């Protein structure tokens, strides 16, 4: 299969200052990204942020208002959809109802005048494990099977880029997990660049080598899933991709590697290398699972140099793998803490006075101009949309 990707000569996809306006509203706003050849690239964002519009412009189904699209050195911006070496797996699959599975999959090959399609189609149907259903009509297939036909129909053309618009959106949770693994396997096998649009952050994290988090027509941050998760650069990313505790403070000083921050009278330390703050206003951020909860009486057990906050437990929920605490800090902000259930026995209870602490190396700093609630609603909506299916 490695030979296949080499003969296929995969190339980078470049979007340059890509903009699409519908009336006054910029659905996609000056987007510039390079999607590396052969990568599994996820475009992650809440509903309405412009993901579909971006994909449709790459596919040639929508004309950009300005900007350009290149594949390798070739500018495809002005090419019509049927002239582009790009194929799409549509959100609704859009299988041709009057053609059987075989002919659906063969459609692209036949249009390009390929004479003997039988062997290629059968091979592709085997890849998606649908060989036995070749003569069925799309309506006779389950959702998961239709989804795989849609993938096969696009992939058989060996496109430079395969676009997938929420391909798993219509499947139930179990099938979705299964197809995530399946799609990942197929991508590794064929080596084509996959651009996968989703609003499901877990899906993006498990499948993609590179995630671009999109918000209101722009890319907020792009990188390896772990990189974005561990070091979000904006409040939106911190809140949309997983959860974060964000505390507004001011820079009080700095040592060699650390910035000293004061927030609500409490001192925090943030590594300089992990801060994207530019002025004196700064937001101190930490992921919930990086924090530890101790009884307030055990304050002396907090390791030296750790960031720590006193507070009172307002909610405890036990989820098996972990316990989630809500802790209200002295200034009223509720912090969320995930603690792994390593110790059998006493847990903190609602009403307990506690101290929450974490290592500065797990702390990140955001620019003080950011809204600490950015992306919270979007994340909840995306979660609802995923759970609702």
């Amino acid at each position: 299969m490695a030979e296949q990707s080499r003969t296929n000569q995969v190339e980078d996809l470049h979007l340059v200052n890509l903009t699409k306006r519908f009336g006054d509203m910029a659905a996609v706003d000056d987007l510039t990204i390079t999607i590396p050849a052969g990568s599994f690239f996820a475009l992650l964002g809440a509903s309405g942020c412009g993901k579909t519009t971006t994909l449709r412009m790459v596919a040639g189904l929508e004309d950009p208002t300005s900007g350009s699209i290149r594949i390798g050195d070739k500018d495809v911006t002005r090419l019509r959809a049927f002239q582009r070496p790009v194929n799409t797996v549509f959100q609704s699959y859009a299988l041709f109802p009057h053609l059987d599975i075989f002919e659906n999959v063969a459609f692209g090959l036949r249009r390009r005048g390929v004479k003997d399609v039988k062997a290629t189609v059968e091979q592709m149907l085997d890849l998606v494990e649908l060989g036995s259903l070749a003569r069925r009509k799309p309506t006779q297939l389950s959702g998961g099977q239709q989804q795989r036909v849609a993938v096969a129909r696009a992939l058989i053309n060996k496109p430079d880029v395969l676009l997938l618009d929420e391909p798993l959106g219509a499947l139930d949770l179990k099938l979705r997990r299964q197809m995530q693994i399946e799609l990942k396997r197929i991508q590794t096998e064929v080596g084509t660049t996959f651009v996968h649009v989703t609003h499901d952050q877990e899906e993006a994290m498990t499948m993609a080598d590179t995630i671009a988090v999109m918000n209101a027509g722009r890319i907020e941050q792009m990188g390896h899933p772990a990189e974005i998760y561990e070091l979000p650069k904006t409040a939106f990313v911190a809140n949309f991709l997983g959860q974060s505790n964000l505390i507004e403070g001011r820079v009080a000083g700095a040592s060699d590697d650390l910035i000293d921050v004061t927030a609500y009278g409490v001192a925090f330390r943030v590594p300089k290398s992990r801060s994207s703050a530019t002025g004196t206003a700064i937001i101190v951020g930490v992921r919930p699972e990086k924090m530890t909860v101790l009884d307030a009486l055990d304050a002396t057990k907090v390791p030296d140099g750790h960031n720590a906050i006193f507070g009172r437990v307002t909610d405890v929920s036990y989820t098996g793998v972990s316990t989630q605490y809500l802790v209200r800090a002295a200034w009223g902000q509720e912090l969320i803490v995930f603690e792994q259930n390593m110790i059998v026995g006493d847990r903190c209870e609602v009403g307990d006075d506690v101290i929450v602490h974490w290592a500065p190396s797990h702390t990140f700093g955001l620019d003080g101009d950011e809204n600490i609630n950015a992306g919270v609603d979007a994340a909840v909506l995306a979660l609802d949309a995923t759970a609702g299916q």
Partner: protein
Amino acid sequence: MAPVLPSTVVAPAPTAGQRRSRTGYVLLFPGMTWLAVFFAIPFVTLFLTSLQTPVPGKSGRYRFGLEFGNYATALAEYWPAFLRSFIYAGIATALALLISYPLAYFIAFRSGRWRGLMLVLVIAPSFASFLLRTYAWKTILADESPITTFLNSLHVLPDGRILNTSIAVIAGLTYNFLPFMVLPLYAALEKIDPRLIEAANDLYASPATSFRKVTWPLSMPGVVAGTLLTFIPAAGDYINAELLGSTKDRMVGNAIQTNFIEFRDYPTASALSFVLMAAILVLVFTYIRRAGTEELF
């Protein structure tokens, strides 16, 4: 010895399936009664009439008979009218399809908020009576009318006129049955998911190929319904030929009408009606079978 089973068994309570089928019969009843009274009985009467023999010496009086020769004489005399009926109806259907398809396509995909108005405009002529509309066409196509004058200035009319030619009859048929073509086509096209056409474009089909491979096959049910709804009444029509054509353009409908009303030759008229019905049935079934297989690819 096996024990003898009691011969009387208590009837089991009807199952859900049995109850459903009983409901089905009840629902069928009004329609079946209607068909029996207004279709089956006249059908049998018509068939019997077509076999009657004349009462000697009394013109216009017939009695029961098995005169299958009525069919032979009717066909021998009127086969040109039959042929004309099918040719005129065929051409009118083809023209109606040619005119209606782009129109229905436009209404289904491009009309936006004008869709409702355009559909009303398609049906609007039907608010006036069929006869009245055809009379209006008599004026429109008259010898000194603007259309005729214009076409004559281009020297495209073989006879120098339109009225009382086969062109007028075909034009009238096309016009009168156009809504029966447009509406089924619109209904079929409107159901096509535009995303399928995008998918075809995405899979290297040019707009023309997308039409040929996706839009056209998916609109086939509308094409079949529309052509049938146009062809069948057009083949049996006599008003257009009567009002717009000359005696050389008479269709089988005119023959039936004259035999019934003027000659009072009921057996010939009935025989003609029967042949017309049978011919249409054969044509329609052949057509549906062919269209049905084409639809698969």
